[in-house]
Structure formats: C-alpha cells, structure tokens
C-alpha cells in the first residue's frame, strides 16, 4: 500500500507566469534561451530532457525583444535601447552597450558570429563587432525612414535583408547601402503592411511574413515575387528555416504553426515550388517566437507555454513545457503548518486550514473548519525580482534573495492573527547573493548557494547573524558552475550542493570541510534530499536516474546498487517531465516522494522494482483492476497522475499530512487577453 495521507489541496497560489517574447537557440551545446515579458530569461538544456538550468531574473526597466547567442555568450536587446551581455554563471547582466538608435526591435549575428546586426527604431541597421571581452560599435548602414522590425543575414555575411513597414530591403554589408527595395502591397490604402519577419536562403530566396497574414517567397536578386501563400488569418509574426533550407515554419496571431516544404519539380528543369504542408494548432494565443533547433521546432508566445514539436515523423515526442519555473516557488514551514509563496516580486505567507474530521473515504473531501489565513504579504524594494526564498520550519524566519542582496526577516511568535515583521538589518557584509537558500530544520542556520558557486552557512539571529563558514568546492574544480540544487540534512550536519556540470559536493558543517563528492553523472541533478535519520543523500537527475549515496561511507547504498543493477523501467525513463522535488516520508523513511509538474510518485524501497518487460501501471489503472490481479501488478513506483500543474508536494511534520500546491492552468489562461476570434464550423 501507498499509505493513507491527509492532503491539503492548495489552490490559492496565484502565480501568474509571463508571456514568451523571444527564443534563441545555441547549437553547440543544444540550449535554448527563452525570454519572457518581465525581462527574465530561462535557459533550457534540450539534451538534458529540457531541464530548466538557469533563470536570469529580469528587471522592471529591461525588456528583451531579441536574443543572440555568440558561442556560449548570450546577448539581449530590447525596447530600452541597450544591448546586454549576461554573466552566465552569476546569472546577472555583465555590461550594457547603447544601441545608439533607440529601441531595438531585432538583432541577428552573422554566420561566423563575428558581428551582430541590430535593427532599431530610427531606421538604421548598426553593426557591432564581438570581441573577446566586449561588444564594440562598428558602423551604421544608411538610414531609412521606417523602423526596422526584422532582419536576417545571408550565409555569406555580405548581404543583409531587413523588413519594415511596407518594405523589404536588401543591403550590401560592405557599403552599408541598400541594393534592392521590395515594396509590399497594402490591403487598405491607409494602413501600412508590416513585415514582421524575414529570412534569406542560400539561393537568395527571401521569405517574408507580414501583417496581412501572407507568407511570401521572393527572388532576392531581382525582387520579384515567386509565391504567396495566404494561410494565416492574421499577422505572421515569426518564422524559422531548417538547416537544409527545405522547410519553413511560420506562425503568428492566429495561433497556427504552418509548415512549408520545398518540393522539387517533375524533372530537373522545372522549378521547385514551396508547398504548404501541415498545420499545427498548439497554442491558444499569438505565437511570438519560433526557433528551429535541429530536431525540434520550438514555439512560444502569449499563451506562455513553450511547445517543442519534433521535425521528423518518428522518434521524438512533442513537448509542451509549462510556464512555471522548474524550481521551488513554494516553501513549507513543516512544524508551523505554513506555506511561503514566492511570486515574481513579492512573498506571501499563509497558514494552512485544518479540519476536525479524523478520517474519511479515500479520494473524498473533508470539511474545513478553519480557513487558510494570509499572514504576510511582503513586497520587494523597487520591485526587484526574487531569485529564491526560504522559510524556517517553525515559521518564524523568512529569507529571500534578489540579484544583489539576501534579506532576512524575523516573525516573532504572537498569539494574534496580526504578524509583526522584523527585518534583520546587520547581515554580514561578505554574504553573497543567493541562487538557492534553505533553513536548517531547527531554523538556527540558513544555508545559501551563492552565485559564485559556493555554499555559505549563516547562523541566524535577530540581532547579529554570523556567517559561520563559506564552503568552496574542492580545488580540482577551477571555476565552480552554478548550483542547481541544495539540501541540508535534518541534523544540520551535512550540506549537499549539486552543480550544473553534474557534480554533487557534500560538506560537513561541524568540521567545516568538504566531505566528499558524488560520482559525476552526465546529466545535472534536478532534486536532492537527505534521509531523515541516516546520512544518505538522494539525488534525482534530469535523465530520471535515481541515486542514494551514503555520505559517511562515501558509497552508494545497497538499494541504490540494486536499482542500478536491475535498471529502471523504460516507462519511467521515457517520462518527459523533470523531477523537481524529492522528499523522504518522515514517518516511514522507506517511502520516497518524487514530484514533477504533472504527477507525483511514492517510491517504496521495500517493494520489488518493476521488471523491464512488465506493465508499468499507475495508480488509476491499478484501482480499476480486480483486487486479485492488483497485488501481483503492484510495484515500487506508485504513480498518481492527473495534475495539470503541480507546483509543490511535501510532507508536514508528522508525515501523515501532505501539502500539494496546484495552479490550475485554466485560472492562468482565463487571465490572458482575448484571442483572435475565428469562426468555427458548427458554432
């Protein structure tokens, strides 16, 4: 049996994700950068099961309209008029360069990645040279009247094509002068046609998408129209071209993603034609960005989720990545029964409701006799975005960090509903901004994963908090990479930090030294936890592998060895979601709770692992089976599916109660702006 739990089904976490504005793909390490409307940038690693590696927090005054990867370096530009390069380990802007032309609408790097062309509001294309250290302004092209909304480099690097209102221009990069101007027709004489996206192929075929909903193929040498497809009902906002330049995808305001394919003629003499292939309807709202990654077409837009469609017909699965960060937004004060919700720029502390009824039917609802109470609503200074936050187990300590500072608050125990908040002001000066933080179980210490890749242990005190030690990864690691997961054992003796390069380091708090490192695994760790009583560290990787490591003995536990020997079930490894959280059941540590955004699973170490050939039943299927066959089909993984967006699931103090925080997708989509109204047959 999975066991009986009382579940707090929390749905009052009103986190609102943001719309996707642009997507950029980095080819060598197969990563995708996704920018959202609040200026934040998320980095996904496609090869690691679409693991969300990093989040670069945005700023109120910063918009990201275009992004460019140059090698491993990420540049972004937006309507604020700056081009920014980011520090990819600290996850903060490194420096900003003025675009000298106002708002930037589009940006593209040439094939050799030596220079970046920026199209801006004043109608000028400007070239910036990428040097080792910086981005330097090179020169400007001849000015045109209309703002430049889209641009694309030819592979040779000698020709550039730009799209703006009513015009498509082809530029000679050497002279900075336009060689060709293609005028795009208007539907209404007074309303200009906006060319939202352009692309140029090796054979000088220009593809444009405009506000009339037309996708057009032009001869880039003569400026003549080859073909025009009126497939979209409204503006075509984005397009992407496959590497071999035989496939083109377009998407726009009517949320269709249309694939065009180049079809060779009957024989060699006849001309190849571009043919509409199939139409995908994956988004409910405007698609703002479309990127080809080689094996996937990645799209995102106002509907906020990131959709990856495989290009080939067979093999890969299509992905729909939820807009919620794959990290902890909800923290539980286990003994106090409180929840800390982390929004973009504020924190909310809630006390859970309770019930007097002792037991009920399975899957039934219990009546609530005390409603949940909002205890605290804490806004950040200057609307700074929160990187991470934590709450102490007793609920009397709250901490958060933005990109610059860690802030600590004390909430003295009070009988009344009203909560007093005291900010602890005199924090040690060498406390660094955090990427992850966590209180120890007795709430006496705060463990911080800094943006330098180190771990700091802070002794918490209302008057004078002391930085106990800064744990640095062993010397062999020259530049520590960003920490992706952090945990501390319940007796506060061990701290484990997982880095994005796949290494996991365990530190001894009392001895203030590095205890050991786990054997390195190729894919990064997505969730970490310590056994409640033993010095066992559980690590779950983005590749769905599980390891249990004895940090004292510096070896894998017997169970973990058994798992590795027998291998995990293919159905488990095939799952698309990354486990975001792993917890031992405090009442029964043989049970491990694994959670991702669409399901949770209770893994019972005492039970047999499923055989690779056998069926991998989930809980719903098991319940439908007759009781005789059920016991035989039962295995160590008890999976509970059916969640649309499960943000958090953990045990409360005694292990008999569970808290699940769900954000119904419908509540999110209801807040979105209205879609383009389209007639549907039969309505």
């Amino acid at each position, binding site marked *: 049996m999975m066991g009986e739990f009382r579940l707090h089904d929390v749905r009052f976490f009103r986190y609102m994700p943001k719309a996707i504005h642009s997507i950029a793909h980095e080819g060598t390490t197969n990563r995708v950068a996704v920018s959202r409307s609040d200026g934040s940038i998320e980095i996904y690693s496609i090869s690691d099961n679409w693991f969300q590696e990093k989040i670069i927090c945005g700023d109120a005054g910063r918009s990201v309209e275009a992004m460019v990867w140059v090698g491993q370096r990420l540049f972004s530009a937006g309507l604020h008029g700056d081009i920014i390069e980011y520090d990819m380990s600290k996850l903060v802007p490194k420096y900003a360069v003025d675009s000298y032309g106002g708002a930037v609408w589009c940006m593209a790097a040439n094939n050799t990645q030596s220079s970046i062309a920026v199209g801006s509001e004043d109608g000028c294309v400007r070239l910036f040279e990428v040097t080792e250290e910086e981005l330097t302004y090179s020169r400007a092209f001849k000015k045109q009247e209309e703002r430049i909304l889209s641009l694309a480099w030819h592979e040779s690097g000698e020709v550039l094509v730009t799209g703006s209102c009513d015009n498509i221009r082809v530029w000679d990069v050497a002279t900075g002068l336009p060689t060709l101007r293609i005028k795009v027709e208007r539907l209404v004489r007074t309303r200009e046609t906006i060319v939202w996206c352009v692309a140029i192929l090796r054979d000088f075929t220009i593809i444009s998408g405009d506000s009339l909903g037309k996708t057009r193929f032009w001869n880039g040498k003569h400026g003549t129209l080859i*073909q025009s*497809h009126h*497939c979209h009902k409204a503006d075509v906002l984005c397009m992407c071209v496959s590497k071999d330049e035989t496939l083109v995808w377009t998407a726009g305001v009517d949320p269709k993603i249309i694939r065009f*394919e180049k*079809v*060779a003629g*009957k024989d060699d003499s006849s001309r190849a034609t571009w*043919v509409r*292939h*199939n139409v995908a309807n994956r988004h409910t709202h405007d698609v703002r960005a479309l990127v080809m990654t080689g094996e996937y077409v990645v799209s995102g837009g106002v509907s906020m989720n990131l959709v990856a469609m495989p290009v080939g017909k067979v093999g890969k699965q299509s992905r729909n990545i939820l807009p919620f960060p794959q990290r902890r937004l909800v923290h539980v004060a286990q003994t106090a029964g409180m929840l800390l919700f982390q929004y973009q720029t504020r924190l909310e502390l809630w006390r859970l409701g309770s019930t007097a009824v002792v037991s009920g039917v399975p899957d039934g609802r219990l009546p609530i006799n005390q409603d949940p109470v909002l205890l605290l609503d804490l806004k950040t200074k200057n609307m700074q975005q929160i990187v991470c936050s934590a709450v102490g187990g007793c609920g009397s300590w709250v901490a958060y960090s933005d990109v610059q500072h860690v802030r600590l608050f004390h909430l003295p125990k009070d009988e009344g509903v009203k909560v007093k908040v005291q900010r602890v002001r005199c924090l040690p000066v060498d406390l660094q901004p955090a990427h992850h933080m966590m209180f120890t179980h007795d709430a006496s210490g705060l463990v911080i994963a800094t943006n330098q890749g180190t771990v700091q242990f802070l002794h918490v005190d209302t008057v004078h908090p002391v930085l106990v030690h800064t744990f640095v990864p062993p010397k062999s690691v020259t530049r520590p990479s960003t920490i992706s997961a952090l945990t501390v054992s319940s007796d506060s003796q061990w701290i484990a930090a997982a880095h994005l390069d796949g290494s996991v380091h365990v530190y001894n708090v009392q001895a203030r030294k590095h205890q050991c490192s786990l054997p390195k695994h190729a894919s990064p760790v997505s969730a970490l936890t310590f056994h409640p009583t033993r010095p066992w560290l559980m690590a779950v990787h983005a590749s769905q592998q599980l390891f249990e490591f004895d940090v004292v003995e510096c070896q894998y536990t017997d169970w973990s060895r058994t798992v590795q020997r027998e291998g995990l079930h293919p159905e488990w490894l095939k799952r698309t979601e990354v486990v975001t959280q792993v917890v031992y059941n405090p009442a029964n540590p043989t049970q491990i709770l694994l959670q991702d955004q669409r399901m949770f699973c209770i893994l019972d170490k005492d039970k047999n692992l499923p055989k690779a050939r056998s069926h991998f039943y989930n809980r719903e299927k098991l319940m439908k089976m007759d009781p005789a066959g059920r016991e035989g089909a039962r295995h160590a993984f008890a999976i509970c599916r059916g969640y649309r967006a499960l943000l958090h699931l953990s045990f409360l103090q005694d292990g008999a109660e569970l808290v699940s925080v769900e954000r119904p997708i419908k509540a999110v989509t209801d807040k979105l702006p209205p879609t383009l109204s389209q007639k549907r047959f039969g309505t």
Partner: protein
Amino acid sequence: MAASMEEEMSIVQKAGANLVSERPVFSPDSRYLLCCCGHVVKVLSVASGECVRELTGHKDFITGVKISPHNQFQAFSSSRDKTVKVWDYPDGKLLKTFSLGSPVHALYLLKEEEDAGYAVIRGKDGIFNLVRFSWANKKGHTCKVQTTEVLRSVSRHEKHLAFGPEGSFTASVTRNKLTVLFTKDGKVKEYERPRNEFQCVACHPTDACIATGMQDGKIFLWRGLLQDKEVVRTIYHWHTLPVGDLTFSPEGTHLLSVGQECVLVLWQYNTEKKDFLPRMGAPLCYVTSSPDGSLLAVSQVENVVQIVTRSNKVVQVFQGLTRVHIPQLIQSTNPVPTGLLRDPRSHTLVMNGRPGHLQWYNIHTDRHLYNLDIVWQNFVSSRRPWEAPAVIYTEIERAAFDQQGDWLATLERRADGMMAEEIKLKFWRFNKENQSFELNTTVDCPHQGKVNALIFQPHSGADLPPTAVSAGHDGKFKIWTLIDDTDIYRENVCWTCDSVGMYRDHAAQDAAFSEDGSLLAVAFGQSLTIWDPYTIDLKTTFCHTFCTEKDSIRQVLFGQGSCSHYLVTATSSHLSVWNLLSCSLLWTVSCECSVMVADPLSDHMAVFSSTSDLTVFKPSSPDPVYTHNKVVSTSVVAAIFFPKQDQRVEEQKDEATWQKQSQLHFMTYDQDLLTLQKSAPQQTRKDIVEMALFEQNLPPTPFSMYLSQVRPGQKEVSSHLVQQGTPGSTAVQQMLQTPAHVLPPVSTLCQSFLQTLLISKSSTERQDVEEMESESDVEDNGNQSGTSDSEMEEDASTSKQSTGQSEKDLLSHDQTSHQLDSERTHIEETETLSNVKTSDLSWMKRIF
C-alpha cells in the same frame, strides 16, 4: 400458370434515363456534352440544351465515355457488355468495336498512347484490375483485343483512378489506401489512412500532384511523390460531408470539388484562395471541366447536369427524370412511394421528384416539365454520419388525381421516431389561369399512422361533387368530399371528411373504385369489403379463407372494360379474381405479387412478383397473356400502363397485342424507368427527327446561331397556324437591297415604311367588303384587328420563350405552365376564329 410465351420482348429504356451515372465529358470544342444514359450515349448540345444524337448499340449499361485524344471527332465508350466501342459522335456512326472478354467498368485514354487504352475489368478471382488493351495492327470493324494487367485490385469506379501528367504515374484509391504506380520504373508507393476513406482522386495536368477527396470532407494534396523524402501532404478542409468528386482545371490553376453540400468549390492551386458557387439545389456527384476550361459540367444526384461558366453562371441545364436521393427513401424498399401516376390533363407522368416535390415528366418527348413543391420545406443537406440524429425529410407517400385532372390529393408524412408523426393530407386544385395546382385544403393527421391508399372516385355523372377515399393503418377509411366554403369575403370550396368506415379492427390495406365509381372495395386484413360509396353501406364481403392467417390482402383492383365485373386481389402469396355478379371466387393462383397495375384502356393487367417476374393477364382467365421471367435483376417498385401518344399512327405492327393501346412502364429499385419492346430497337423516334436538328445546331456564324435558337419556336407556331407572311416584306426587301450610303435618312423612310404596313389592312377591308357584303364593316374590322394582334403576340411570345429555353436555366414551373397556357389559349382561338381565318386567306393569296 402455363407460360404462353408469344415471343421474347426486350427491356428498353425509352425515357427518363440516368444522366448522372457516370462522369460526362465535353467535346474538344466544348459545344457538346456526352453523357452515359443507360444503354446509350447522348450527345447534348451545350448551346441549345437539346439531345442532338444518341449513340445506340451497346447491349448493357454504359460505364464510361471518353473523347479520343488523337481524333476529336471520335468517342470511346465502355460498357458492361464486355465491349469498348468507337464512335464518330457528330454523325452517330459506330466505327469499331473492341471486345475485351469481360465487363468493362471504367475506361481511360491517354494522350501519349495512340493505339492503346486502359480499362478496369473484373478478373477471374473477382478482383477489379486495371488493364491495358491495344488495338494496334487490329483490322476490321469488330475485333477482339488482348488485355495486359497493369495494376491489381483497384476500385471499379472511374473517379477512383487517375493518371498523372504525361502518364508518368497512375494513382488509384481503394477504401483506405492510395496506391501510386510509377510508369517509368514500375515502382509502387502506398499511403494508408486507416481512419479515413478515400472517395475520389484527381491528378494535376502538369505537376506531379495528386488530389484525393476523403470521407470526412478533407481534400489531400500529395506532392513530392518523385522525391525519396517523405511525401508532402497538404490538407484543404472546407467540405463537411464526404467529397463527391474532384477535378483540376485543364491548365491546372484550379481544383474543383463538389459534395453533398450542394456547393461547387473552386480552390486556387497552391494558394489558400477558394471560391464558391453555392445553392446548386441538390447534392453534387460529378464535376468536369471542358478542354478549354471555359465551362464546367456539374452533375447533381437528382439527374441534372448543369453547365457553369467560369464566371460562376449557370448557362445550361440538362434535366432528366428527377431521381429520389434522400437517404431515408433510398434505404427503404420503395424509393418512389407515390408510384407512377398519370396526369389526365397534361398526359404526363407524375411521381416523387426532389425532396418534398412531385415531378411532371413527359414520357413521350423525354422531357422534365416541372416540380411542384408539396411540403413547402427547404432542402437541408444531410449531416455528417457521426452527427446524430440524421436529417429526416418530409416525404410524399401518396398522391392521386381525379378523373379530369382538376384535383390532386397528396399525403405527406414525417416520422423521425422521436416526435409524433406529422401526416398531412393536401388537396390541390388546378388553376386554369396560372396553369398550375394551388393548395385548396390541408387536413392535419387524417389517419392515425400510415395511410395505405388514397384514390379519387371516377365519375360517371357530372353533377356529383368530387370524392376521394383514404384508407389508413388505423383501420378506418374516410370519404372526403368537396363542400361549399363560401363566406362574405370570398367564394370558396373545400374538402371535408364526409364519412368514416371501418370493418372489425383490421387495418385498411387498400381501396379501389370500380370503373364507373359505383362500388368501393376496401381490403381489411384477409377480408375484402365492397361498399356503396354514396351511402357507405357494406354490400358484401369476400374472405380469403384459402390463405394463411397472416396473409392479408395487399392490393385490390377492379377490372376494366369488358372485365369490369371482376375484382382482382393480391396477397403476398396468392392472386385471386372475384366475380362481382356471382359474388364468388373465379380463380386463384399461387403467385407472390409485389406490384399490380391495370391498363385503363384495355382489360389487361400486369403483375410483378417480388423476384421481378412479369405476368400480363386478363381477369377473365387464369391463363397469362404474356410472361417474362426476371425482368430486371433488382426489384420492381412501381409500374403503370401509359396510354400511347398517337393512336392513329399505329404503324408499329410488331407491337404485342396487349401493348397496342398503352405501354407498360415500370420503375426498378435503382430508379430506372424501363419498358418492354418487341425485338431490338431499329432507330428510335429521336434519331429520325434530330437528323435535321443536328445540322441546325452546328452554328457556322453568330447569326445562324441566333436562328437555330429561334427556329424551333417558329415551327411550333406553324403547326397550329396558317402561315401569314410578313406585311410590308417587300418594302423591307427594297430597303435591304439598296446600298446603305444612298439611302435617305431613316426619319424620312419611316413614314413610307409604316404605310406599307398599313396598306395590307386597308386592302383586307376592301376585300372583305367585296366578298362578304352581309357582314358589317365595324364588326369585321374589330375581329380582324383582334386576330392579327393576337397572332403577332403569339408569335413573339413563343419565339421569345423558345430562345429563353434554349439559352438557359431550369425548366421552371412558371415557364412550362406558361407554355401550356399559351398552347391552350391558342387552340381555343383557332377554333373560335376559324371562320374569319378562311376569309383571311383570300387576301393573302392575292398579295403573293
């Protein structure tokens, strides 16, 4: 029943052939349309709408017709009689016959192969195969050709196979599979759509592109077939119902699709633009483009072919006998529930037509006259199969005319299984002014449940009000009579239920009146009851005790003429004749009878068994006059003895004795109207008459084209009227002979020209005065001017009408009634003014 077979008679189709069984084809000059109609190919003139030629010679149904791509005056036709025939279609001459050895189901000709064609034939294992047959080195009029198999297991419908540009590939669809066979290397590619069914296929004329229409209404365009990569499939989805037919325009710029939505959709190739021609009236089944792309032929399942220009204008309509197409009737045992009726007034065939309509069809001229809307409900195209419930249409189940054709009674019923049945009995009165039937009385729910019979009482006495009888499944028969319904606002008559009769509690199965209308026979279960229709007295009862319990009477008929004292009843197992004078059973035979009809002009009767065996007999004797086993392979659903048009011109001596006066027509389950004829037809009436017409229909100049449209109208006039000559024709001639540049201004000519027109009138006056002094001038004057005026009008109206007819659209109700109207008034006029006419002749003689 001893078979007294006189001689073998053949089954022929004289009128009402199915024009839309196969895809029609245009002649290369787009002037003619070739349609497969049963056993003949009709060559229809697009300009005039007339059938100019019938290509007769096939002995079974024709399955396809194609124009030879190498000789534009040759047409190929394939038939189930195992032959392919080559015709010189402008002359109607049979040139060659190729025998293929098994029934040919589809025929394809390619431009690339001059002496070979492709056909779909059924192989020995029952699978249809595409074969190639070549007639190279074959001499002679009739020759046997060898077939070589090209592609196995194809569908037998013509629209399920298409050839690519220059014959580079062959695309064939069967149920869930598209098979493409490449000619060059013989490679085969197959594409399956397991959850969808292919309905039709078409190939682009120049690109390597296949279009397929699917069951769920999608159109797939398959491209990139020649590449090694995955095929590119583009979906175009407008249709909701299965796609009926697809074709590309000859230049390849458009794709045309039709379906049950009654809409022709024109898709612009490779862009997303589409154009519609909506409200075509009936579900569409085929579309063809003329070779120059200027015209489209759209076939409707109602047996109509419309010619549409590329500017979406319907310019010509070929209307055959309207076929019933609504699913609820087609799936029932009888698609024509009203049976075949004869309108006594216009001597035309009346039966179910479009949904909720009755149609009038002239069986002698093979022309559809008009549809009469009975139920007054718009036609709604059917729903998608998975969208329950299906659309239920109100259908006319019974119809009857009274003896003079003044009254029409119709019974409509709508039963969808959920709501209460809607049954309406409607009485329609013939309006002489409008020449159409007008609704007089509507009776809601005349019977509980089905109505099994609806008949009018034949009148012997003129002063009796018209009477109708309906017999229902509720065990009642009701007598309806006409009563006066005049109030202070208007004068009116209406129908009301006069009396109700019942017998025990059996359902009334059928009712019949004796020839003089003095006796009414109503069948209740196994009992046949005879009533006096005036007093509703039960006169006598005949009981079918020799039949089994469940074997109730299905049909009752009184004998005609010398056999009018006999009463014939049909149960499912017996045919019995009762003598009314002796009130006894005369004879009975064991015979399964499904349709029984009596000849109104002789004492013959015809019976079709459920296995389609025909027996013609006289009620007086159990010996059959004529028997014909297995008339058709399907069942016969209705029949009628239709009086022959011209009794005097009875030179068809080889006609069977029982068909001397009226011809037996019967309708099969497949809605083919057939008849029996002795020996094979030599030349039908049409061929003789149309010889001249064909010449006229070849317009060499625009002016003669105008003439060809006018002439038929003039002919019609001349048949009724004495030719009068044009007044002032000499003046016109003079004017036309003088060169235009020496002519004085028109204004000066005008007066003298008008005077020439007037002279004739004054001269007639003089004539009349001279010859007939007894008549007063004034009266004669009035008469004369009256006649000449009316004749002029007549002339104008008829000619106008005929041009209108040849030029355009539907033979609408109004128009035909107008024609009838004009003819009728015309006859009346000729009669009343005959004396004046004779006098007119004299002055005409003098002029010429």
